[in-house]
């Protein structure tokens, strides 16, 4: 009879969770490696147009320019006209040169003359705004640009 009394009240033993931290750490390291810290707070709408003939952007030597309508949060304050954003704030077209020079100086010195301007422009923007930006870039002699797009086929939608 004593044989059967050895079992304690029928409790289920606790599940061993010792490897759970390891799994989470693995996930953590994965995210640390493949992502970068978000450095810009987007103030404009930014749905990129689609294209399929793409080249990769060299991140270390690029300066970002965002353009588009102010996002819904900022609509009351800034209206609905297309706007340019460099860094964290809206920039006027006459101020683009100054803001870009500043952004260029933040890069590593050996890359400063190889700088590539990445244009992240919302697909609903008019081309006129982009042309204005490009004219400013030509004045500054920053001639390498890249239109950032989303992958996809633009024709058969």
């Amino acid at each position, binding site marked *: 009879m004593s044989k059967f009394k050895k079992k304690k009240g029928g409790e289920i033993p606790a599940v061993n969770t010792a490897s759970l931290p390891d799994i989470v750490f693995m996930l953590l390291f994965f995210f640390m490696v493949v992502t970068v810290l978000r450095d810009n707070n987007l103030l404009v709408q930014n749905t990129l147009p689609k294209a399929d*003939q793409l080249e990769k952007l060299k991140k270390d030597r690029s300066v970002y320019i965002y353009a588009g309508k102010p996002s819904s949060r900022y609509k009351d304050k800034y209206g609905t006209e297309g706007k340019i954003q460099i860094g964290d704030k809206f920039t006027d077209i006459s101020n683009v040169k100054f803001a870009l020079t500043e952004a260029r100086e933040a890069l590593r010195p050996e890359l400063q003359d190889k700088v590539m301007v990445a244009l992240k422009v919302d697909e609903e923007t008019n081309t006129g705004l982009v042309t204005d930006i490009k004219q400013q870039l*030509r004045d500054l002699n920053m001639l390498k640009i890249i239109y950032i797009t989303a992958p996809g086929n633009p024709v058969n939608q």
Partner: protein
Amino acid sequence: MARRATPEVNAGSMADIAFLLLIFFLVTTTIEKDKGIARQLPPDEEIEDPPIIKQKNLFIVSVNKDDQLLVEDELMKVGDLREAAIQFLDNGGAPNGSPEYCNYCKGARDPKSSDNPEKAVISVQNDRLTSYSMYITVQNELVAAYNFLRNRESQRLFGWKFTEVKQSIDEGSFNGNEDDAQEKLERIQKLFPLKLSEAEPKKSGQ
């Protein structure tokens, strides 16, 4: 002194801490996937005497404010633009025997269209009110036309595709002689040089 077994450290909260860190990284970081169409802008200087381009070597693409496409004075759908550009670039209209004769062109050899790919210039004209997505679509189709022809030639000469090799070199995953491949890429680029010119955009209504 009798040795005592060290008591086990309670690591139950380690997972929670790791989760906190994980969630922090999930929220504050982004996965960068920036790709796009690269372009070189023309320098901002007046050209003294611009080279005269024959009308037949010029392929005019204009887009109006309603995103309608006019190619060589004819309305066209965006889907047909790529094929039209390929036909124009690949035409090789210069007569056999002349110094401008294009021996690798496979086009229609129409004397009214471009002499050879080196002479052929595609000119894009926009309206200021053209939508940006249309602008990118047009640019994309024209680049696609060049890529198609470059791929065809590199396939014929070297047995690989221009865009694939270029991409693998850019990403640093090319195995083989990189300098040699780079040289071959330049040769192909010389056969079909990218000559896209952009006119100043019109203001709507002019």
